[in-house]
Each structure stands twice: as C-alpha cells, then as structure tokens.
C-alpha cells in the first residue's frame, strides 16, 4: 500500500495542473459565453450568402 504515498501526491499535482489550466481558460474568456458556440454548430453552414433564396 505504500505506493499510495507516491500516487496520491502525484494525483494532487495533476489536479493542481488541471485547476491551473481551467483558471487560465476562464481568464482568457473561453467560458464567458456558454450558449452561442453550441448553437453555432447547428446554424452556421457553408452556403454562400447568395444562393440562400428560400
């Protein structure tokens, strides 16, 4: 069981890395808008604006 003395601190280090990465992502504005990107994938398309006569 003594391997836990290595594995748990290692897990905590990785956890710290994940928290740091998330804080960076929040700070750079990636989470400011949680709704539009989800919608964009449904709405945007490759059609040129001209051939959109419906």
């Amino acid at each position, binding site marked *: *069981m003594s391997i836990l003395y290595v594995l748990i601190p290692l897990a905590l280090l990785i*956890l710290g890395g994940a928290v740091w990465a998330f804080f960076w992502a929040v700070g750079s504005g990636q989470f400011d*808008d949680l709704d539009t990107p989800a919608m964009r994938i*449904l709405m945007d398309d490759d059609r040129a604006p001209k051939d959109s006569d419906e």
Partner: protein
Amino acid sequence: MAAPDNCFHCALPNPKGSELTVDIEGRSHRVCCPGCKAVAELIRDSGMSRYYAMRDAPLPGAGKPLPEASEWQVFNSREMLDAFAETEGGIAEARIYAGGMYCSACSWLIETSLEKVPGVQSVEVSPLTHRLRIRWAVDKAGLGDILSGLSNLGYRPQPLAADDASRPEIAEQRAALKRLLVASLGMMQVMMFAVGLYAGDFQGIEADMQHFLRLVSFFVATPVVFYAAKPFFTSAWRGVVARRPGMDLPVSIAIGSAYAASVYATFTNGPAVWFDSVAMFVFFLTLGRYLEMRARHRSIDRSVALSQLLPNTATVVVNDENRTVPVARLAKDDLVLIRAGDSIPADGVVVAGASSVDEALLTGEAEPRRRAIGDLLAAGSVNLDAMMTMRVTRTGGDTALGAINRLSERARFTRPAFVNIADRIASYVVVALLVVAAVVALYWYFVAPERAFVITLSVLVVTCPCALALATPAAFAAAGSRMSDLRLLLTNGNAIEVLSRATQIVFDKTGTLTYGAPVILSTTILDDRYDETQCLSIAAALEQASSHPIARAFRTDGTLPLVTDTKVQVSQGVSGIVDGKAWRIGTAAFVTEGDAPQTASSTIVFLGFDTHAVARFELTDTLRADARDTVKALINMGKKVSLVSGDNATAVAAIAAALDIEDAHSDCRPEDKLRIINALQESGERVVMIGDGINDAPVLAGADTSIAPGHGALLAQTNADVIMLGDSLHPITTAIRLSAATMRIVRQNLAWAVVYNATALPLAAAGMVPPWLAAIGMSLSSLVVVLNALRLNRYT
C-alpha cells in the same frame, strides 16, 4: 415562438386590421409593423432564417426596430471614431451595446451579419453583457455603417466610450465559475480519500496511512473552504456588522466549525474527520448560487439600463456653430440644441424656444408638460414638438434620472432582510449533527473504545446533510426552470418563498394594469358630410407629423390621404392641407378657435377645418384585457390588492372602481409609493409590487418581492425579482401558486430529511447500522429529495 396573434418578429400584439405578412421557409407569418417586416425580410434574404427556429421566446418588443431611423451617418465622422474607437494602423476597434438582444441566437445573427459588412475583420458578441467588440478597416467602413447595420436588424446600438472596460457581470461569472470548479474538484477528491478512510475504519487501516489520508484531505479541503466558500464568510460577516445576520451566517458557522473540528482531529489523531461533508456542503451551496447568478445575468444589464434612455449624441452650439458630440462629453453650461422627437441628454434649463415634453419615464404621468424659457428639463424625457436650446446644469449620474437610479439602489440595499428558513434549518442541523457525532464518539470511546470509530462513522455517514442541503436548492432550481417554461423569469431565488407567503399585492396603474398608451374610445361625427373612416384617415394623416403620445393612437397601416403644409402647434395640435381644405386636429380651442370645455377623465380631440368641428374623438388609456380576471383571482386567493399611481385622482378612481380595488392611492411620486409600501410592511403585510416604469424602480426594489412586465422599462426590470415575459397579467397568479407549491415541496423535503435523520441517527448511534448500510441510506434519502423536487417540472 410568438403566439399567433402576436408579431412573428418582435412578439408584440399585431394591430387590428393589419395584414402585413412575411414569408419564411415556405410559411407566411403575420408581423405588426413595416419595420418588423423589413427586419424579418432582411434576415431571410441574408440566408439566416434559422435565427427564428433557434431563438428563445422573445421579450415582447425586443427586436422591434425604432420607428424613426436614427441618423447613424453622423457616426462616420472622424470625431466620432476618435470618441468611440481605438484606431491603430488603419484598424479600428470599438465596443457597442446592442439593446434588444436577448438570446444566443441574437448573438449569432449579429456576428454573422456584421461579418458581411465590407472591411469588418472580427466580431465578438457577448450575450451575457449584450455587448460586442468589433474590429474593422477604417478606410472600408465607418462606425456609422456598422451601427446602421445593427439598427437594420432591429437592435438599438449604442457605441460605448473607449474607456468603458468595466464589465462586472463577466468578472462575477468568471469568479463564480472558478469557485465552482474548486468546490467540485475538491469535493470529488476529498470523497475519494473519505472512501479510503471509511473502508479503513471498516476493515482496519495502518495508523500512518490513516494520518496520511487525513492530511491529504485537509490539504484539498482547505482551498475549498477558504477560496470556494469565501463569499459565504464575507457575506455572513457583512450581516453581522450590519446587525442583520443573513442566511450565510449559520452556513458559515457549519462550514467553519466542521472544518476546524476536522483540522483539530487531523493533527491530534482525533476519532474522525469531516472534510468530505464540508466539501460536499460547500459544493452544493456554490452550485445553487452559480445557477441563480446565471438566471439573474440572463435578464438584466444594470450598467447600461440608465444610459439606454439617453441619446448617443447631442448637438452642442459653440460660437453659433452646431457640433455633434457624444453625450458622455457634455459638460455643465454647454448649450445643447434639442430637436423635436429627441431625448434630452442631460438636466438643464431652457434658454431659447418652447415645447411640450414627455416626462412619463420619470414621473409616470402620460400627459406631456409644457416647457418654456427658464423651465427645467430632465434627462431622459422626450422633446415632443418644437426645437429648444438648453443650458446643461447636470450630467450623467447627477441628473434626476441618476437620482432615481440611486434611490432604487438604496431601497434594494435596505430591503427587509429575508432569512431563508430552509437553509437556516439545514445549517443548524449540520451544527447539531456534528455535536451529536462528537457526543456519540465520546460516549463510545468510554464504553467500548474499539467500536467508537465505526459507530461515529456510521452516524456521520447516515446523517450526511446532503438531503437537507439539497432540499431547498433542488426545489428552487426545479421551480425556476418550470417558471421559465411558464414565461416567468426568476432573477432572485428568494422571491419564491416571499411570493408563497405574500399577503398584499400592490399594482402600478399606467402600463401595468392599463396598456399605457391612449387608444380611441369613441368617435362622434359632428358633420354628416363625412363618415367615421374618412375622419380617422384624415386624422391619421395629420397626426403623422406629431410624435405626441396621442398621435400614436391614430396610427394605421392603411393608405392615407396626402397632406401638405403640416404645422405642429405646441400643446395644441396639428394643422395641414388635405384635399384643398385647411384641416386642424387638436384641442377644441385650436380647431374651432373658440373656447370649449374639456373633461378631465379622458382626453378629447377635435378634428375640423375653417373653425368648423367635424369629428370628436374620445381617447383613454384602457385596462389590459386580463386585468379584471387577474385582480379577481388574486382577491379569491385571499390576497389584499392595492393600487398606487402617479396619475390624477379621477383616472385612478375610475380604474379602481372598474377592478373593485378598494385601496387606491393617486398622485404618488416614487418616494410616496415607497412610503406606502414601507407603511404596509410595518403593519405586517408581505408586499408584492407589480410595476413597469422607471418611476416604479425604487418601489420594486423596496417591496418584499416584485414582478415587472417584460414590456416595461429596463430599469424596472433590473429591480424586479420576477419578470413576466409576454403581454399578459395572468402569470402573476401562476407565479404565486407555483411558489406556494414549491414551498410545499421544500417542506416535504425537509420533513423527509428530518424524519430520516431522526430515525437513522439513534439506530446508528446505538451501533446497529454498519457503514455500508449507512452509505446506501444516505444516497437514497438524497435521491428521494431530488425526485420529489422534480415533480415541480410538471406543475401547471
């Protein structure tokens, strides 16, 4: 989607007799005005029809284009570019507020269409703050072109000064998200270590390993308590300092004492640690607050609410030269030219000209006021019929409008402290459980030390406060989502408990119980050479020239006779030549050039030519279609109903009589309304205020809870706890019934949690429940609470 009798584009009711339609994706939809038709067709023709399929239900009027096309071209000047954008190497960057934007589909629409404007390099839209950041090549397009592009889509753009960098909502959301992440990751980690510790207690564990796991738990739980739970501590402390302890105080005591006891146990090898309970409690509370914050942000943007009422630019007279400057640059003693139809940009004194001014935003009174040299003008009111020059006395936050805003801020701050009973019970139970667990541990330590660990553990697990902690937030979250299905936007979760116990409903009159705009009640023909249709169309043709509220009552979409030589006479009426005759519409004195009596309760307008009256129109502000039913339903529910209004006694009495409201107050200024509400509160009533105007904002903030209709002023909505989408009063009763149902669910949940804990605790304390059974019991009790709360999703 809009109801069939409402505009497809902006969701306002379609005017009777209007037959405007727009064809989208093979179906024909009715729209309310040529403006909405133009916007809808523009959206269709640019291949973005899917906007209509993807958007949320619109706030009525949100996307409706302004009737008078603003002169965006003035923003193409060099001066404006310098004032509102930062230019570097031929690329300008500007920040623009898009009024009328309400959902993610709007931000998609704005981004996609602005990217098609030549020269535009990038557009970033934030649906949260309704702002967009745009970068474009200055030699290809001007700021005005971008603003008019937004305006063509039906939004009300407002360029923000380059130094407007403060976005409190973004900062708040980012901080809340970080806290939530720390709480959730911390909770998961601590739970994992806790499993190890529990298993160890159950099967035996080396003392070193147990100490190690406790230390690690301490290490992970510490940021959860000091970072994620910090807002609870600061708010609890604020409550203590203000001698008005809020619900965060017991929460903080529970978190703080459990954490301190666990730290002590960790370093003194005590019987048990509770880091897992602490982390879980913090996580659920943080999650609840985060969801509540998102709902609040979705509906309001307080920072811009005020400036949206002011124009973007003002015309300043310097050395007999007119110069267009941003309103933010106005200074005291500037001379400002105000044209007919303009909003007044700052408080000031008239130095030249005379006109009538619509101050309804400030006073709530529909009747325009006459203003001449020496009179005061208030920012945010609208100049109706003639050009005036004013000298600026106060700008920005110092204006009367700014003062109303501050009054409502203050009322919000001094709102009666509301202690959420459910959360308070949960917090006390947490403290009590910890004490009981400690007593049980101590007892067994002396009676049978070898069993003390397992039994204390079972006590802690079986009585885990999860069910208690979840009882209220789960029910409130379900109620919030059900409310938005029922077209009610909840911006403050506490409103549910207050609404469920409301005893007194106070209505504003103009715009809330009534439509807020005069309509033609009756037409009397005084000259039988003309019929009603002819008179109405001549009247409509003449009134085209006027922006007076009365003129709006005559608007139609039919073809109108040609008018030449129109003149607007301040506070009297409009004259013009139709079919060779000099027609006049307005007061009796104006039309007949003689004296005629006026009645007080409704407005009388005459139409005639050559001092000969042809028709008489009676205009009045009518009751909303469902006002009567709603008031009756409220009285049947046992609520007391009152009416407070800034309007005159006759008009208020007429409405009160029509609705059977006994308690009616007239001629109230915002301060008077607030005093009436406070007096009711002192006599023990729980007051719900329902109002829509700027002048209602302080009262909405001061009442126990408040509801604002979605069509009302933005400032009123920022101060309301619940916003009704849609054009009906009926949701008020729904909100109250749903709140009562929610509180019933909360009480059931709390009762269940207490009964469960009360049965499980003695059994566990007596050593009859092994830890694994305790864990199953705890999970099941939480599940019961959540499933019970979800029943609200089917509430009708």
